C-alpha cells in the first residue's frame, strides 16, 4: 500500500512542472499544455484521496476537472487561433499591446 503522501508528492511535482512551464515558456500553446499538467496534478490528488477514503467522490470531482480542462483547452485554442489570425504570432511576450 503506497502512502497517500507519495501521491501528493507526485502530484506536487507535476503541479510545479506545470507552473514552471506557465512561468517560463514563450509559446502560448505550451503554456496551455502546462496548465493541462497542473489540472492533471489536481486529478492525481483527487483520485488518490478517493481511494484513500474508499469513496468515488474524488473520482467524480476529477471527472469534472477533466471536463473543465477540456473546455478550457477548446476555448483557449480557439482564442489562440483568433489571436494568431490578427497577430501572426503565438509568443506570450509579444502580447504586450495592453500594459501599464
Amino acid at each position: 500500500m503506497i502512502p497517500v503522501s507519495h501521491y501528493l508528492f507526485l502530484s506536487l511535482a507535476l503541479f510545479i512542472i506545470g507552473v514552471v512551464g506557465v512561468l517560463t515558456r514563450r509559446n502560448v500553446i505550451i503554456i496551455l499544455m502546462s496548465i493541462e499538467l497542473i489540472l492533471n496534478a489536481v486529478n492525481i490528488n483527487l483520485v488518490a484521496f478517493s481511494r484513500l477514503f474508499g469513496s468515488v467522490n474524488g473520482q467524480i470531482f476529477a471527472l469534472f476537472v477533466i471536463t473543465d480542462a477540456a473546455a478550457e483547452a477548446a476555448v483557449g485554442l480557439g482564442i489562440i487561433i483568433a489571436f494568431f489570425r490578427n497577430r501572426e504570432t503565438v509568443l506570450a511576450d509579444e502580447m504586450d499591446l495592453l500594459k501599464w
Partner: protein
Amino acid sequence: MPSPFFDIREFPLIQPEAELALFGVAILLIDTFLEKREKWFNAATALVGVGFSTLTLVGLPDFLVRNLQGFAGGRFAIRGLAGMMRGAEAANPGFPGFPGFNGTILVDHFFIFFSLIFLAATALVILLSVRYMEIEDEHHGEYYALMLFATVGMMFMASGVDLIVQFLGLETMAISFYILAGFLRRERRSNEGALKYLLLGAFSSGVLAYGFSILFGLTASTNLFDIRAVLARSYKPDDILVFLAFVTIAAGLFFKVAAVPFHQWAPDVYEGAPTSITAYVSVASKTASFALLLRILYAFEPSKSLWLILVAGVAVASMTIGNLAAITQSNVKRLMAYSSISHVGYILLGVVAAYSQEDGLNATALKGIAFYLLVYAFMNTGAFAIVILLRRQGLIGDELEDLNGLYKRSPGAAVLLLIFMLSLAGIPPTAGFLGKYYIFLALIETKHYWLAVFGVLYVVPALYYYFRLVKHAWLTEPADALRPSVTFGQAVALAATVLITLGAGIYPEPFARLASFAFALGR
C-alpha cells in the same frame, strides 16, 4: 413516478438558472434565423429571459415556503423578498435556506440577494450592449447567450455549497467571460485581452483546483458545511495543510476578484474587452467571485486566526496599488480597472471585519459587504455606461481626452458621470458613501482602527483620479462638438443606475435592509 435520480420537487431550486440556460439556448437557435439588422431581437430575448428568471427568483422564497415545508430543506426558515425589504426578523443567523440536490446547493437569502445583483447587472449590460456591439459590427446571438450562461454560472457560484458545483459554476462563468472578452475578434486588443484572461484565468483555476483537491483530501467531503465541521472538529486552527489549501484556494479566488497581487490581468482585460463586457466583468464576475469567496471563507472560519491577517494585507495592498496606479492612467477603462482593484480592497476590509469577532460573524461587516457589492454593481456599471455612450464609429472613447468637454456636449451625461464618480469615491449623499460607511463602521467595531485609517485616507487619492474624469468632462473644452446620442436602452440603464446610486445614498433604508437580509441578519 419519481425519478430514481432526484426528487422533481427540488427543481424549483434551480428554476431561475434553468430558465436562463433555456433562454440562452433559445437565443442560439433564434439567432440563426435573424438578419443582421434584426439582431436586437436577441437582446430582447435575453432581457425577457433575465426578466423571467428574476420573477422566478423573487417568487422563489414564497413558493418554497408554501410548497416545501417539511421537505429536506424545511429546517431553515426563509422569508420572501418583500419580507426582506420590509425588515422582518429572520429566524437563524448564518446561512439559512433550502438545501437541495443532495446538499450541493443552498437556496437562501444570500443566493437570492447575489443573484438579483447578477441579474440586474446582466440586464443593464444587455441594455448597454446593443448599440455598442452594432458599432463594433460583432452583434451576434452568441454574445447574449454567453451572457446568460455566464449568469447561470454565477448563480451557481452563489448558491453552491459544494466544491464541485462552485468549481463548475466558476468555470462556466469564467469561460464565458474569456470568450466575451475576446468577442471583438478583429480587434487586436480584444484578442490579446481575451488570451491573457484565458491563460491567467486557467492558471489560477488550476491553482484553485489544486487547493480544492487538498481541501477535499483533508476533509473527505465536497460539502462546505461538512468541510467546516471537519475543519473545526479534527484540525488545529493552524494546521499547515489547511493553510496550504486555504492559500491556493484564496489565490484562485483573489485572482477572480482581482485583488493584489493577483490583479494584473484586470487592467489589460478591462482595456481590451468590449466596454460593455468590461462593465460586466468588473461588476458581475467580481460580485460572483465574492459570493464564492464568502461561502468558502465561511467554511474556513475555524482557522480564521491563520488567514485573517493575510486578507487584511491583501486588502491594504489592493487599496494601495489600485489607488496608486490609477492616479496616472490616461485610459478610462484601465483607470476604472485599478479603481475596481481598490474597491476590492475595501470589500476585503469588510471581510476582515466580518471575521474579526470572537464568536460568529460581525453583522455590520456582512451588511457592509453586501451593501457595498450592491451599490458597486450599479455605480460601476453606470460609470462604464458613460464610456459606452462615447463610443461611436471611429472613436473608442476610452481615453481621458475623449471625455473632454462632455459637459458642453451632453450635460446630462456629465452630471451622471459626476454622480457616479462621487459615488465611487464615496462622497455623500451617494450610495458609495454608505457602502464605505458600513465597512468603516465594522472596522471600528472590530477595533481595526489602523485599517480604518488606511481605508479612509485612500479615499483622497481615489477622489483625485475620479475627479480627473470629472475634470476632463466638466472643466476642459471639447475637442469636437459631436453630441453623444443615447439609445432608449442606454437611457433606461443609465436611469436605473443613477436612481439606485442616488437613491441608496439619500434614502438607503430599503437597501440597507436588503443588505442585512443577504445574510439573514436581524438588524
